[in-house]
């Protein structure tokens, strides 16, 4: 038998039963006899949802059955299978509604049968919010009652709404397992047709919450597929009727997981992602969640001490510390690695090597932890974005201190925290919980491995971590404005600077220094309605100053019309605006034909004749001030730094501290662009001059290139 034969025969069987039941009822009561489900305004919800027709009496029901018959096409295409599935489901609804004739109460405790509209409105809200992350339909009998209850319990623990059909209800009763709407385990009924009562919930959810018009079958199926996170667990031997019902479920977008390997193999069933054979009932939960793409919200971090931002600044002194992991002395590192979903077991936390209690108190040890993540929307570009958050996550643990990043980390754990029971697996728990909740949009699965053997850490550092970091740095170095297709807006600061828009490009990070192109990309992926939106760059206006039609359009839109056009690479022509968060301000110094840069930390005078706060008052507020520009520190060594005016060669002065910070990268850029060695030595600072005349003399002595360049204005 093929899948077609099985579904068609199951469908025919149910259709036959329905036809007989309706005919018998008409013979007994006549065509005008009213029929209805109790407590619903949606007639026969499934039939009404699919066709838009309400059915009020047996005569109309008979007519409706005629409509159902038209769905039962017998071509051997997948669509015929699905439509026959839908037909089977509708037949089931007809059989069920007959049970309610004359206000009968066909179901008795613990079974619920039909569920009223009020319950759906109540369950619908947590379903929409994700507080109920999914709906499980468990059908049939588990191999043993214990396994059945364990499966129900596993879903219940995740907040998933569980509905039961058939023998599983008896299995729960036999084990004395508590069921009922209040504990979100709802036994529907023992006949397979009672499964329609959960389908009815999904259909009414679409009508009530999705504003789907009754009769819009395509809209209905799209809604149930996209918004009702239901799935079916068919336990035990599959018969044609169950398979036909399953086809209906798949048509609505609900995957079916079965443990009937034999039948599945016999009919050679293959419906990828929708019909899944999982012989091990214990794995039904994980398989179902993955198939339906259900993510369980993590609300609590399972550690023995507090986790709060209040602990972020906590310092742990040598005397209070139980242990220290110090990357500056021994080999340590932290790393996020993207993997394939199949390579990861979600929430697996493994500690390889001795735990904290096996090390001498107050000792210095090695540690390496690798957080492996997988997800459909995950990109390797997000790895460093997640990794940079580890600092904050681990510092939020009471009695834990974390500094540095990559292979220069240092972690201290306090004696109190150790005594409260904190061990290395808890470090894994923190990372797991935070990554899964903060990056839920892109991370589907996450596992953490922690190594503490010194030799192993050394080996992994050199063989895994350093190559990974090198690869990333290389990616950053090759990431240029020309090599990407899109830039990003950042309007995080509009709350206080309403017309400012940052255009973030690979070579020009946000002026606050905190939002790189990769950060903006990740922000956009994680929060698609958020402050970072994609800006295309297809319509070049002027390559030299970096002006694009599409960038201008975006700036116009995001500044609500306050700004018309900006350039990316000029300080004089249409310079980018600043909010007020700039790390540095660059301003023209006319006498030397160059620019001075002042950073926020610098409190003194600049040769421009203004201090940082004075410069800030001219530059901020989202207005374009030609000749002045706010920017991040990192931008100083960029090849795009005021490229239109000649680039970094124009830099004639910056505070000594800042010069130290950017020296290596700036010198490298100067060497590459102009062949100048030790360019920073030619740049003045506050120890050389705070006025233009002295600065000019210094520049002449150093033969600074700016002096011989074209005038800026």
């Amino acid at each position, binding site marked *: 038998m093929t899948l077609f034969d099985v579904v068609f025969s199951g469908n025919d069987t149910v259709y036959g039963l329905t036809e007989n039941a309706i005919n018998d009822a008409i013979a007994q009561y006549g065509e005008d006899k009213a029929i209805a489900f109790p407590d619903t305004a949606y007639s026969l919800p499934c039939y009404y949802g699919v066709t838009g027709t309400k059915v009020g009496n047996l005569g109309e029901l008979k007519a409706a059955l005629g409509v159902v018959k038209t769905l039962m096409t017998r071509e051997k295409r997948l669509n015929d299978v699905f439509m026959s599935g839908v037909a089977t489901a509708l037949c089931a609804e007809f059989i069920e509604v007959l049970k309610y004739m004359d206000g009968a109460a066909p179901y008795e405790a613990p079974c619920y049968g039909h569920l009223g509209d009020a319950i759906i*409105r109540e369950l*619908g*809200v*947590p379903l*929409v*919010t*994700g*507080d109920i992350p999914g709906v499980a339909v468990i059908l049939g009998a588990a191999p043993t009652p214990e396994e059945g209850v364990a499966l129900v319990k596993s879903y219940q623990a995740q907040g998933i709404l569980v509905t039961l059909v058939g023998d599983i209800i008896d299995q729960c009763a036999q084990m004395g397992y508590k069921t009922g709407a209040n504990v979100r385990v709802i036994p529907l009924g023992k006949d397979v047709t009672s499964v329609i009562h959960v389908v009815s919930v999904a259909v009414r959810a679409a009508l*009530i*919450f*999705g*504003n789907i018009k009754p009769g819009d079958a395509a809209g209905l199926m799209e809604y149930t597929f996209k918004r009702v996170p239901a799935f079916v667990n068919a336990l035990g031997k599959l018969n044609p009727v169950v398979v036909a019902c399953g086809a209906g479920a798949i048509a609505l977008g609900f995957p079916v997981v079965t443990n009937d390997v034999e039948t599945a193999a016999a009919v050679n069933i293959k419906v990828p992602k929708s019909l899944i054979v999982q012989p091990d009932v214990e794995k039904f939960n994980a398989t179902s969640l993955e198939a339906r793409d259900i993510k369980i919200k993590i609300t609590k971090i399972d550690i023995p001490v507090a986790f709060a931002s209040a602990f972020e600044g906590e310092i742990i002194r040598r005397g209070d510390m139980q242990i220290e992991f110090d990357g500056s002395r021994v080999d340590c590192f932290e790393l996020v690695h993207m993997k394939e979903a199949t390579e990861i077991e979600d929430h697996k936390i493994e500690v390889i090597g001795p735990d904290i209690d096996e090390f001498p108190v107050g000792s210095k040890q090695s540690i390496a932890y690798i957080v492996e993540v997988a997800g459909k929307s995950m990109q390797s570009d997000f790895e460093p974005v997640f990794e940079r958050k580890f600092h904050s996550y681990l510092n939020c643990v009471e009695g834990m201190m974390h500094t540095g990043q990559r292979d220069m980390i240092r972690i201290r754990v306090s004696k109190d925290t150790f005594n409260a029971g904190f061990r290395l697996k808890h470090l894994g728990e923190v990372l797991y919980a935070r990554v899964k909740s903060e990056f839920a949009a892109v991370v589907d699965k996450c596992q953490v491995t922690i190594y503490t053997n010194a030799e192993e850490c050394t080996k992994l550092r050199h063989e895994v971590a350093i190559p990974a970091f090198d690869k990333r740095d290389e990616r950053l170095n090759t990431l240029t404005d020309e090599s990407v297709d899109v830039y990003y807006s950042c*309007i995080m600061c*509009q*709350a206080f600077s*309403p017309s400012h828009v940052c255009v973030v490009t690979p070579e020009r990070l946000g002026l606050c220094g905190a939002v790189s192109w990769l950060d903006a990309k990740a922000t956009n992926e994680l929060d698609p*309605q*958020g*402050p970072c939106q994609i800006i295309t760059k297809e319509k070049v206006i002027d390559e030299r100053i970096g002006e694009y039609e599409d960038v201008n359009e975006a700036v116009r839109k995001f500044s*609500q*019309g306050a700004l018309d056009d900006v350039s990316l690479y000029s300080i004089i022509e249409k310079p980018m605006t600043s909010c007020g968060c700039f790390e540095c301000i660059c301003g023209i110094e006319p006498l030397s034909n160059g620019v001075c840069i002042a950073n926020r930390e610098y409190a003194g005078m600049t040769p421009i004749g203004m201090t940082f706060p004075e410069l800030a008052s001219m530059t901020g507020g989202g207005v374009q001030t030609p000749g002045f520009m706010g920017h991040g520190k990192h931008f100083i060594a960029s090849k795009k730094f005021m490229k239109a005016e000649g680039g970094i060669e124009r830099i004639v002065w910056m505070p000594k501290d800042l010069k130290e910070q950017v020296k290596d990268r700036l010198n490298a850029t100067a060497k590459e662009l102009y062949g100048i060695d030790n360019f920073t030595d030619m740049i003045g600072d506050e120890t050389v001059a705070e006025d233009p005349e002295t600065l000019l003399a210094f520049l002449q002595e150093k033969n600074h290139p700016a002096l011989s360049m074209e005038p800026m204005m």
Partner: protein
Amino acid sequence: MPFTAKSGKFNAKINAVEVGTGDKKITIGGENVLPFYTFDDAIANAPKVGIEITDGGLDNEPDCIKKYYEGCTSVVDMAKKAASFEGVDFLSIRLEGGDPNGQNKSTEELIALLKEVAEAVDLPLAVCGCKNVEKDAELLDKASQALEGRNAMIMAAKEDNYKTIGASAGLAYKQIVGAESAVDINLAKQLNVLLTQLGVNGQSVVMNVGTATAGYGFEYVVSTMDRVKAAALSQSDATLQMPIVTPVASEVWAVKESVASEADMPEWGDQEERGIDMEIETAAAVLVSGSNAVILRHPESVKAISKMIKELV
């Protein structure tokens, strides 16, 4: 050359949102001109004025307001009385006793009270939460259910609980969803987008874009409202065309200028007069900045603002 006035009416307009049912039903928004620019085009619906009471009843009112509710022994009595004051278009009940950091009244208790109030008045209703996002999610979900059929404004869904309140008020029980953000056009816009993505009909959303008492960083409020209206009208931004409802009372009656007694601050003069002044000034300012409705507390302020609107529209 003769001066030819150019009409400043826009092609876009603010959504017109009906609140309440029956004879007393009101419509908020609908205009295609800047606030009170009647010389550019007729204002479709004059701004509306709501009066606020709380679950705390008389005990919760400043002394200067208590006297207007003389004889009232319950919140329901107050609701009836409030509905009778001159200039009142709708009634707002603020369930502030639900705040877990305050009285922490149970949701059941507050909803029971809400139902009584709803039965006692036929004015359109607004229900304001207790400002605690978690409790509000629970409280306003149940409030939406309790007021099914009343077409009430549920104030309000915020970024942290919009899913629950949006789904409940907007989808399950077909109320008007208030979308509250904190004085930032982008956040206001984002919340509207999120609510519509959830499936809530944008035509059933009103915004509380945040407010302050006049003098308390109020320029931020003015500039936010200005920019929201400018984007909605001149740029036809459909995600900002929701009318603005501004709860003024809860801000004004919490600052010292309104509540400090004359004994404490003799140089500030009569407390009642001061409180009314603060409320009227704030309300007038948010109205001319673009609010389509305000919620006030003092019956005299309601009267004055209502008169102002009548004179101007």
